[in-house]
């Protein structure tokens, strides 16, 4: 019987010839990651149990992302606590404020996660990295403390669901729309405990960044991990970036999948998840006209340079609608600099959008544009549960960057074509 890529990766990291779904293993991790919110609990767990020796300081990344720059006194104190730890152990992969950005955009950008690896992150969207052909999953802080101490993680080998996307994508359809559609089909817990493998010609036509958007959101279907086999697009992305040698792992033709989906995406319009669940998905035309108060372009889902370019191409020469706030937050410091160089930031500011330093910011209702009672936001991020971006009675629509930007210009949810006409404009 053939093996899925995930079985192969996990077997090789557990020192076994093969593993079966459902089996419990202790796997060796290649990288452990925590952020400013999850690191403190992990550090306290280590301290409480008197563990002072770290597994491998070269492989422990701490990325400040959520409440940076500090939003209040408590978050400043919390950051100081994690910073002190990073300095004490002299962690080379400590990314302080101004030196990194949102973790799931940063680690791929710096080539710190590569195909064939096992990456464990104390943040639920750590599943993002699987877009590069590796196993990665999100865990809590205590799990991460255990990896920091031993380099090992206990895992149940997941079953794999396979998604095959065929056809030709419409000009305004991106990775975000494929994953929103998928979540809408299988629902919020359709992939609970499972690995989601994405493939097919329509998927292969997507850039590395758009692919990372897809694996970013597997958790919104309950998934444990996402996987996209590395190909020439992946290798081109890794060139000059990859910090470690890598192995490309593929599922065997006769591998066993617990479910297989095969969809023709031709003619699908951009997708929107309506309040308050990521699986309340519909085509944008069905919700077109819904009033919004603010729009947010950013986050680990869609805060990359490609996303900013699309937004700028739509915004150029236009203005954000009166009474609407449009937050634009490049996901990393490097993306911000690139956007500056390309003149994108100027376009955003000219259009009266608000541009901020790299942070998660409003994605989790932290700061930089928190929603008030009954306010409605259209966001390029990944979650719209009640209260996610602010007040419990606020509402969030999730969409791709083009839809978010067009909606910021009109003040209601709309198709980008409503703003720029039929053809997609070049950035």
């Amino acid at each position, binding site marked *: 019987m053939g093996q899925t890529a995930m079985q192969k990766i996990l077997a090789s990291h557990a020192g076994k010839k093969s593993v079966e779904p459902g089996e419990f293993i202790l796997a060796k991790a290649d990288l452990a990651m925590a952020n400013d919110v999850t690191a403190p609990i992990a550090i306290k767990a280590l301290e409480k149990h008197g563990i002072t020796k770290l597994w491998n300081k070269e492989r422990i990344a701490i990325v400040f992302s959520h409440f940076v720059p500090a939003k209040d006194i408590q978050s400043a104190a919390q950051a100081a606590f994690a910073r002190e730890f990073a300095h004490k152990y002299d962690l080379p992969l400590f990314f302080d404020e101004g030196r990194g950005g949102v973790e799931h955009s940063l680690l791929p950008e710096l080539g710190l996660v590569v195909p064939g690896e096992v990456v464990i992150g104390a943040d639920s969207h750590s599943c993002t990295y699987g877009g590069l052909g590796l196993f990665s999953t999100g*865990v*809590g802080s205590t799990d991460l403390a255990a990896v920091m101490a031993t380099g090992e993680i206990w895992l149940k080998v997941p079953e794999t669901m396979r998604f095959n996307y065929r056809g030709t994508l419409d000009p305004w359809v991106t990775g975000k729309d494929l994953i929103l559609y998928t979540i809408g089909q299988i629902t919020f817990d359709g992939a609970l405990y499972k690995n989601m493998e994405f493939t097919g010609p329509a998927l292969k036509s997507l850039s590395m960044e758009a692919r990372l958007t897809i694996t970013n959101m597997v958790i919104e279907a309950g998934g444990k991990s996402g996987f996209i086999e590395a190909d020439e697009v992946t290798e081109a992305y890794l060139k000059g970036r990859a910090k470690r040698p890598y192995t490309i792992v593929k599922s065997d033709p006769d591998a066993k999948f617990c479910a297989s989906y095969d969809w023709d995406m031709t003619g699908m319009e951009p997708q929107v998840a309506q309040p308050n669940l990521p699986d309340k998905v519909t085509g944008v035309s069905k919700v077109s006209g819904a009033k919004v108060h603010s729009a947010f372009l950013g986050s680990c889902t869609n805060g990359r340079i490609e996303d900013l370019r699309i937004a700028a191409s739509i915004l150029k020469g236009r203005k954000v609608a009166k009474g609407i706030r449009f937050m634009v937050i490049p996901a990393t410091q490097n993306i911000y600099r690139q956007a500056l160089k390309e003149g994108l930031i100027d376009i955003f500011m000219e259009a009266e959008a608000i541009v901020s330093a790299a942070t998660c910011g409003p994605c989790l209702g932290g700061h930089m544009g928190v929603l008030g009672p009954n306010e409605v936001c259209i966001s390029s991020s990944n*979650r719209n*549960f009640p209260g996610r971006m602010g007040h419990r009675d606020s509402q969030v629509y999730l969409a791709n960057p083009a839809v978010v930007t067009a909606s910021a210009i009109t003040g209601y949810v709309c198709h980008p074509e409503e703003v720029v006409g039929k053809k997609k404009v070049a950035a």
Partner: protein
Amino acid sequence: MIKGTAYKFGHNVDTDQIIPAKYLVTTDPKELAQHCMEIADADFPRKAKPGDILVAGRNFGCGSSREHAPISIKGMELGLVIAESFARIFFRNCINIGMPILECPEAAKDAESGDKLEVDLDKGIIKNVTKGKTYQAQSFPPFMQELIRAGGLMPFVKKRLAAQ
């Protein structure tokens, strides 16, 4: 034996509803406990007493990986959480920090807020005294039982480190 009153919640209660992000600036269990479940039910932190039982539908604890969520529940000294199903990371976090949970779709579906429950954690037996019904929850796989017996993940890790 855990004896307490049930507080019932719906499907997909995510960790933002268990503990909103604005409180993630602290890791103190008592402080977090004061805001536990407040998005879903603003009075919950004051109503529920130590030993009471949180009952939920499918996919409880989905969303963010924040361990602050089970810590806030533990901080309230609730007896346990019973759900139709748990989100994966939340499930792991509970096992790792020693917060008792049981997966039992029938018991979770039947229970209503205010029901008196009695739970034998070791045997996984849930008794709804109000409704006069008894249920058997799913048992943990042997590996997890080992973790639970060790008192959570960190004691287990220390044992492994000592053995190396």
